């Protein structure tokens, strides 16, 4: 028997106060704090203040900043 189709779209989110442990689990916290990570769209330097989210593409983790243009671009190019 086929599994029942899910009737929900689950949107995964991370809350501000969980951001540090979340990034730590992904192994990105230190690099982010040292300014080594960049937004995959506009290439600006990412920090804990302007971090907007993360997504996976072709097995690679990519990060983006909080700018609405970057968010829209991620939605568009990723075609999730």
């Amino acid at each position, binding site marked *: 028997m086929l599994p029942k189709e*899910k*009737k*929900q*779209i*689950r*949107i*995964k*989110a*991370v*809350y*501000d*106060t*969980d*951001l540090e*442990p*979340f990034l730590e*689990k*992904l192994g990105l916290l230190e690099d982010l704090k040292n300014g080594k990570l960049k937004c995959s769209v506009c290439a600006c330097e990412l920090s804990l203040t302007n*971090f*907007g*989210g*993360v*997504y*996976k*593409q*072709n*097995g690679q*983790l990519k990060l983006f900043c*909080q700018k*609405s*243009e970057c*968010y*829209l*671009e*991620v*939605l*568009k190019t*990723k*075609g*999730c």
Partner: protein
Amino acid sequence: MTDIVKVFDWILRILGVLGIPISWFILKWCPDHPEYAQKILYYLIKLIPFVFSWKKRKLIEKEIQGFVNEEILSINKESFGLGILPKNLKIEWTLKKSKEVIINENEIIIRLGDRLELCENFVDALLLYLDKSFMPESQIYLDPSLYEACKYCVAISMLRKRSDKHYRIFIDKYYKPALEKNKDILKYNEKLESIEKNGLLSSILLSSLAFYSNKWIYERKTPSAEIQDDIEKYIEFIANIANKKEYEESKGELPPLYFTSKHIKVNVVLIARKELAKELSYMPHFEVAKDKLKAGCDIVFVTGRGNINISLAEAVALKLREEQIGKQINGASKFYFYTDDNRKIEGICYAFEKFN
């Protein structure tokens, strides 16, 4: 103020019950066991920010999920349950201490929380939801720019009931940049906006596109330029009905109410003729609907605005059901539209499909 009094009263009552054990704990047990008392105090202090962040998280979750799901329900009702937004929204907070963070291919995890503009939380989640859930069956047949334009139009219609701030942020920070990047969206923008303002977006346009997409998938029709061309003309047809007054002024006649092309055959029975409304006569409308359904029209929409026209539309729908001329698609679609002087007027729409 009354809430504070209630909370205070509640605390006093609890203290009344728990007063003796608590007093014993604070005054006797803690001084006797200072090493444990310090630890307990440490954990209690640590708990405070956790409780606050949990509460805020719940508030964000409730605001987004509650409002979006309510709107999904209303849009689906307006569009006869034809699958415009087939799934509900659920916010899932990723980090639970016992779990590892797993991100699947093509999955986005967004940040929500105490932003400068709190409305951005809502808009981000709404856009991501629409990106994943909006008219999944129709996407293959629609021109990508038209699909995007429809999606934004649905977002705008959802945001009409939110505060001005939500709307302004959506337009300034998301909609405008999207238009600048994809100029083709502009091509559809104006038409869709007037269709939406006149209450015909979910009830007629999107519902018929969803209806035809399901039909074409069932018939194994491949997406083609011909289908896209038919859809473009169909949008023009609905836009003319939405802008009926302007159309009449410029062309000196009523806009056409019957659309027929190779792939789309739709008739709109517009119950808006004053002379018929005065006589409370529904028969001419019924005859048109009957003729079109018998002549092979795929869908006939019977729609009216304002009390008199709504009752006439109901009478036409009842007669069509009684005489079994077409198959009614689910219940009635109730919608609202706003006149130029901002009067809110109720409208109703019924959809009938021909018997196969």
